[in-house]
């Protein structure tokens, strides 16, 4: 089969790989139709995630058709069109039975601190991802869901991670009616988090980024008030000024490990790998909210230490909330919101890249060329 493979930092190519096979009775093999490159895939692409092995296939956002099922699979049959949540989870461990699907303890030998994801290094379990013609999907009775007839494919693929993560991030903010919410990052997760904040009753939603084209999308898609941090000497002071010197009630970090805005932080993390991530957005979040506020962290960070300003967080009495999103737990409500017309997830898609051209797709997304916000990966004849 054709598959994207990692060849080392900043290098990927498409090559022939053996088609995946059933390795467990509850596995399914999915023929991928549509995938996506996630902002967090760029951490792998840049060599930031430990134990990212040459030859692995990335991609935790994908939909497709069931091609084969293992002997214990009950809920799917060959030919079903399914959307697959980014998390791999067993459905029966201590964490899964409490709804913490992203923290499953039965799927990742390589680490206990993180669950398992498709195509996201051996640190998250060593599974190949969906930027390929076929992918092995463990626990087929637990994760995949048949795509409703009414749902567009591009909306379905956005639900597999980005939309669910943004929506979950807004929930972790514990937003109450009238709150001022500031979202750092106008990428896909930030845009969805900003949009979701309104659903939860926010009185004001502010989005911060340095890319004007993304801020424009934040205004049109998420109805947000936007600021380009490069235009201000100190974005923290600016946020205090525009909130009557309180700061926001809730902040959402939707940037994560490769945040810009401080050369030293970025280079030590993203280039020299001396930090698990560049916590610029997180530190801005901590400093720009009011005392007693909540900071929701949706940005992905690597497993080693990062220079986070915990002293300020402690002294301000902040609540820091974070987790990888349990995607499927968000789906029933998000299905309702999409059907009701509250949002159209695919509105943020900017690029549709054939699998064979995925190396260019990674570079365009990574370097923010051609006003890229969300690139989909078109597999086969989809």
């Amino acid at each position: 089969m054709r598959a994207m493979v990692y060849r080392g930092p900043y290098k990927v190519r498409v090559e022939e790989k053996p088609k995946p096979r059933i390795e467990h009775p509850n596995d399914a093999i999915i023929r991928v139709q549509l995938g996506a490159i996630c902002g967090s895939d760029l951490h792998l692409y840049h060599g930031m995630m430990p134990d990212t092995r040459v030859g692995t296939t990335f991609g935790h956002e994908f939909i497709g058709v069931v091609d084969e099922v293992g002997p214990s699979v009950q809920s799917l049959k060959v030919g079903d069109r399914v959307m697959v949540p980014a998390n791999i989870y067993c459905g029966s461990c201590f964490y899964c039975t409490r709804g913490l699907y992203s923290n499953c303890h039965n799927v990742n030998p390589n680490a206990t601190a993180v669950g398992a994801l498709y195509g996201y290094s051996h640190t998250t379990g060593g599974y190949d991802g969906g930027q390929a013609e076929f992918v092995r999907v463990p626990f087929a009775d637990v994760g995949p869901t048949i795509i409703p007839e009414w749902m567009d494919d591009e909306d379905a693929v956005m639900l597999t991670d980005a939309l669910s993560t943004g929506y979950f991030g807004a929930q972790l903010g514990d937003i109450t009616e009238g709150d001022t919410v500031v979202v750092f990052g106008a990428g896909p997760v930030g845009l969805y988090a900003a949009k979701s904040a309104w659903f939860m009753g926010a009185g004001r939603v502010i989005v911060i980024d340095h890319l004007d084209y993304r801020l424009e999308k934040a205004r049109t898609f998420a109805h947000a008030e936007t600021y380009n941090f490069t235009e201000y000497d100190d974005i923290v002071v600016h946020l205090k000024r525009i909130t009557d010197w309180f700061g926001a009630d809730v902040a959402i970090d939707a940037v994560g490990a490769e945040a810009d805005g401080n050369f030293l932080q970025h280079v030590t993390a993203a280039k020299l790998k001396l930090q698990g991530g560049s916590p610029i957005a997180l530190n801005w979040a901590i400093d720009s909210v009011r005392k007693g506020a909540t900071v929701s962290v949706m940005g992905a960070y690597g497993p080693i230490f990062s220079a986070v300003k915990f002293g300020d967080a402690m002294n301000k009495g902040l609540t820091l909330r974070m987790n990888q999103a349990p995607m499927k737990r968000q789906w029933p409500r998000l299905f309702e919101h999409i059907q009701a017309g509250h949002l159209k997830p695919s509105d943020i898609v900017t690029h549709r890249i054939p699998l064979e051209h995925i190396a260019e797709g990674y570079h365009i997304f990574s370097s923010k060329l051609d006003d890229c916000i969300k690139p989909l990966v078109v597999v086969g004849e989809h």
Partner: protein
Amino acid sequence: MPYTANKPEPATREELRARIPGWGVDLDPADRPSVPRERFDLNGTGAHWDFPDRQPEGDQPRERSIEHGMLPPVFGTAAPLHGVSGAIRRFAYDRFSEGRAAHWLLLIAGDRVDAWGAHLRSLATLRPDNPITQTGVVSELRHGLTARVGRKRADVNHQWIDPILVAGPWVLVGLGALAGVRALLRGKR
């Protein structure tokens, strides 16, 4: 201002509903899908086992974190350990917990050894690594200038480092090889 008791009044519900599609549809915190975060009442997960069947381990022992009490029943098989990078990675897993920086730094070292080994091995194949096509850098020809010139981007100040990270080691190895060849030739004379 926070120097007195009250905050500025937000916009009214009516104003927000008129302006924002879906405003307030998840207003009740108790009616949000991830509230509370730990819940038993999620109508099941689809699992029809108390503990999953075990996936066969394969030809070599599956590496695992020493913070695990046992090998989890299901795991990925994307790229089994092999060669020098595999030895480094296995040492990281066998010796250091996830709480130790050495664990992660060794894994990153294994990644670099893996990448270099793969690059060198590819030179002996019909499809050697191609830094031009594999980095996707040709897209710079179409979009590079327009994406950067006249834009207030904070990332331009470090993007010059990327080509050095990608090409720098190749240049150094090339110069080293050239120096070695010249030294050999001088020795023969």
